[in-house]
């Protein structure tokens, strides 16, 4: 990493004035690519590691200008009448740098999800936001999974840290330890997700084992000097059993840390599944109820954790 400013990566958004993901007012940077496939994922457009077309069918006029414009023949019209929709060969799109389809679209039914950016030009954007954060604010890397692009994340964190910017990251932890370890010196704050303690259940919910995740959690707890807050997205009926609550609490306490932030699961991201060509698999669209959340918090508190609901984390 001789020239961190030239290190590049894929992001899909930058969001200023974020108030729930770390101390103070913050700028969030959303990195593309995630090893997990959580059923309730609210940012499906962040799952694939490369830029992709986001297609909003309800705005499509089916004038097919985008088909003509595409140089890779990646777009096809499927179905007829009411059922017609455009399909995209997203592998081809990943190689595209011009996105002529987006430019050809009159109604903005098509948009480019994600773009390549160097740490240098990303930093110059972040720098503009500094004056708005106040005393405690900074940046939070999220996504997707920031450590899925380890070189980029490392270079970005180091650049910001050295510029005296407060740095935080939100991670699912399912990455090789080395990807996390190298970034730790440049980090002040970590939100670490624990979706389920049981390996089989975890696989069912996220299509991935939790073994590496738990191992990484222990290692961070051991070697990280900053604040580590675990996060549990509470999905009714899937990970809110007494057993899982107890084993989550046991696990956290066994790492020597004691802070947990419970997030209510919502289904507001479901409309975005269509945009990125995924299917929303979670049955029912019920939000985690306030009662369930309070119940879980009380239970965790009894078990000895400092437990915060939603945006109530004291920063």
């Amino acid at each position: 990493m001789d020239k961190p400013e030239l290190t590049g990566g894929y992001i899909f958004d930058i969001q200023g004035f974020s108030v729930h993901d770390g101390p103070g007012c913050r700028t969030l940077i959303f990195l593309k690519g995630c090893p997990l496939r959580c059923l309730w994922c609210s940012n499906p457009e962040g799952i694939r590691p490369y830029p992709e077309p986001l297609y909003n069918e309800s705005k499509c006029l089916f004038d097919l200008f985008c088909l003509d414009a595409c140089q890779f023949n990646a777009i096809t019209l499927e179905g007829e009448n009411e059922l017609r929709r455009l399909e995209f060969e997203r592998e081809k799109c990943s190689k595209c740098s011009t996105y002529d389809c987006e430019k050809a679209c009159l109604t903005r039914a098509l948009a480019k999800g994600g773009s390549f950016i160097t740490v240098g030009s990303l930093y110059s954007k972040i720098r503009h936001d500094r004056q708005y954060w106040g005393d405690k604010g900074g940046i939070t890397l999220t996504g997707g999974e920031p450590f899925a692009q380890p070189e980029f994340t490392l270079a970005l964190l180091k650049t910001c840290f050295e510029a005296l910017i407060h740095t935080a990251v939100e991670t699912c932890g399912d990455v090789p330890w080395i990807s996390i370890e190298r970034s730790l010196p440049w980090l002040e704050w970590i939100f670490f997700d624990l979706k389920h303690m049981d390996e089989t259940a975890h696989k069912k919910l996220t299509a991935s084992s939790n073994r590496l995740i738990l191992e990484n959690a222990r290692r961070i707890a051991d070697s990280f000097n900053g604040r580590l807050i675990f996060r549990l997205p509470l999905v009714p009926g899937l990970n809110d059993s007494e057993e899982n609550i107890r084993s989550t609490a046991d696990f956290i306490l066994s790492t020597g840390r004691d802070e947990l932030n419970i997030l209510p699961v919502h289904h507001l991201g479901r409309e975005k599944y269509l945009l990125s060509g995924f299917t929303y698999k979670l049955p029912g669209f019920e939000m985690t109820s306030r009662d369930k959340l309070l119940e879980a918090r009380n239970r965790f508190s009894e078990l000895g954790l400092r437990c915060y609901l939603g945006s109530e984390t004291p920063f």
Partner: protein
Amino acid sequence: MDNFSESINYYGHKPEEQVEDREKKLRPTERANNARELYFSAKSSISMEFPYWYTRRWEELEGDVTIIRRAESLKAGFEHLTPVIYPGELLTMGKACYLRGSYPMPWLSEAFFMAAEDKLYKEALESGKLTADTFTTVGKGGGNVTKSVGNVISIAGKFGLRVEEMPVMLEVAKKWKDRSVDDIGHKYEQLVPGYKEKEAIMRSVICMFDSGYTLPQGREVINYYYPLQYGIDGIISICEEGMNEVAGYPEMDRLYFYKSVIIMLQGIRSWIRNYAAEARFMASIEQDEKQKSEYLEMGLRLDHISSNPPRDFHDALQLLWIFHVGVLNEDAISGLSPGRVGQVLYPFWKRDMDKGFMDREKTIELLECMRIKFTEIDCFASMGVVGGVLSGNTFNNLCIGGLKKDGTSAANELEMLILETGISCETPQPTLSVLYDEKSPEEFLLKGIECTKAGAGYPAWVNNQVAMEFLLNNYGHEGMQLEEARAWAIGGCLESSPGSWMPLNLDGEIHWIPGGSAPATSVGVHFLSLPKILETVIFDGMDMRSGERIFPSHGYKLETFEELWQGFQDYFSRAVHVLTLTNNIQHDAWRKISPSLVNSMLKPDCLEVGRDIGQQGSRFNTTFNVESCGNTTLVNSLASLKKNVYEEKNFSLEAYRKAILENFGYHTAQETGSYSLVDQKPAEHYSEYRKIHRMSLDAPKFGNDDPYVDSIFKLWEDWFCEMTHNYRSLYDQPMYACQISVSTHGPMGAVTLATPDGRLSGTTFSDGSVSAYPGTDKHGPYALFSSATCWNHSQSQNSQLNMKIHPSVVKGREGSRKFLELIRAYMRKGGFHVQFNIVDSRMLKQAQEDPDKFRSLLVRVAGFTQYWVELGKQIQDEVIARTEYEEL
């Protein structure tokens, strides 16, 4: 633009299915709640009492000195106002005998109610004077009388008039034909070379309206000092001394001024005493003992202050209110701001608190009653003014915070309670503005946040230092120094207005209280439609909507961006030039025919020098300005042309002309019935224009921290703010820039064809002056702030930034602190003003469908707060479309 941002620009954070309610809930006191319920059931009503007696007296005194005639007429008006006191009132008196009463002032303009008579209306229309009215809709619900019902006639779609008063109205109006400020001004403004061009400018709605006869006063801060210090009899003594000094000596005008003030004050004194008598009468027939004693106490209070200075806080508040209404009754006025009332009343309040005569609960009750009283104010002006500019709002801006005379923070405990009652008793008036200063105490600012979060739309956050810098720059030559600059406040919607410190002597101790010391601002060139001017530049001087030539050919081929910009500067300057001259003539007619007496008497130093404000009796007089509308739409359009025509040469200017005329292949807003871009529908031939439309939409947009377009914004600002100084007001002072759109961006947008930024024909312009166009600021508030502050705001009387924030973003304790961080950051960047709608857009849509359920829903619109149901549909559509920064 479309609502693209809504579908993908937030992350897993679509708003909840259930509409999120506002966080802070406080109830008004029972007394205030009853009064507010009464207000909700009241309709805007016209009473002819005041104008009848005014006109009758005026006729009787034909041939007398004008200012004396004026004083006698006002006196007759005040004396004959029927007193009406409502049960439970702690503060009483109002503009007219109805709860939401007001009346036309035919001495300013009679054309409006003559409109009932077809012929006259047509004449007026032909002369271009009423064009704005045709394109304005006033909100359907609420207290507006939108349709004639039974024996009540709807006037201007807003006011109700009893049928039997109709003949009186017409008869009184006829007396003023060819004699009103409007008619006299109109007669002489035609002497201005280039007057025809002015008429064309008004017909095309490049300019919204003439201020001289529509709203000659307002957009200023009142000064309550003299009545509070001297009482009515005391002021009369001052005038008598003045008369003795000047009677028979040269400069005789002073004699008539002093005499007029005395006559006018006698009228006000009778008016107060009529109310005192009514209070005693009400007591005599009241069964309830508590109410009976309240009436008796009210009678005693009114009797006392009809002559003497106030004894206590309650007296002071009542007297202040009387003079506020007194000023409103002499002219059609919008934006007569009470100013820094919390600091004016503080000495009285503190003394009562120390003596134990007053407590927190009683204070809150009184302050809530004050809120209701200010909300009852209605302003009768023409439809174009009431709906198109004001949205029914009267802009009584109450300022809190700022600095004292000695430069320390001025925020006090009474102002904390003013904020508290702003939460507990949500009403549109008085709207609140925090004068933010780095010296303001944290707890005061956090109280302001609490009030902002309550979601009534106030307080707005205004930068104390930026305003002081502006005032020193523009009033320095009149002798304003730093100390006096600190006495400023917002006049009206958002006009920085000069103030002075007055020595209030209470029990031998001097308290320096702030108050306004200049006449009306925003009386210059009233709202210039920047996008419409650009349209005429592109079409070489033609208004293509009507096919009429507005300006002579500019003679440029428009082959470079510089030529285009030069063409814009040329036409803009032409418009400012001719409008300044005609406007000066109208205001000259106003000051000659209808000189201000109540307001003049209050403003320092009129009583000292013996001149009214029209004769520059007040301390500062550099108040005329040039107002812009549609800044961001103009700048986005320039950026689009620069990129697509001049730099990348994607299209010729001819292609743009065609696209503009064909509305980029879309149906017009008039066809779709919505003025919001979101609802516009493509027509059959859209495909011809899809490319140019798309590339216009894709051109850089203001509000994204993009130097390409921000540099054009700065180019505009630096030029505009400077060029205004080249024009001279009636008082031979340089003018300055004023940048608030109020509600004009709706009706002005309605008559403007599609613009090169991709905005479609007839749709609303960008609001405020540094707000992004709805839906085009895609990088959040930080980027918007950076764009907004790409120029120095103290060059202008104001700038305006409107933001809509979802309640969830600023929830809870953390939310409050972070919200303050956000505002503080903008202020530190030199932003002049920011205000927030803390509201869920779906709640607004529900309210649009079911107005009755949302009778009390308040929203913030372009500089003021108003009941949602009383807003015009254009503005409703626009508020909904404004970018919402939300996350869970």
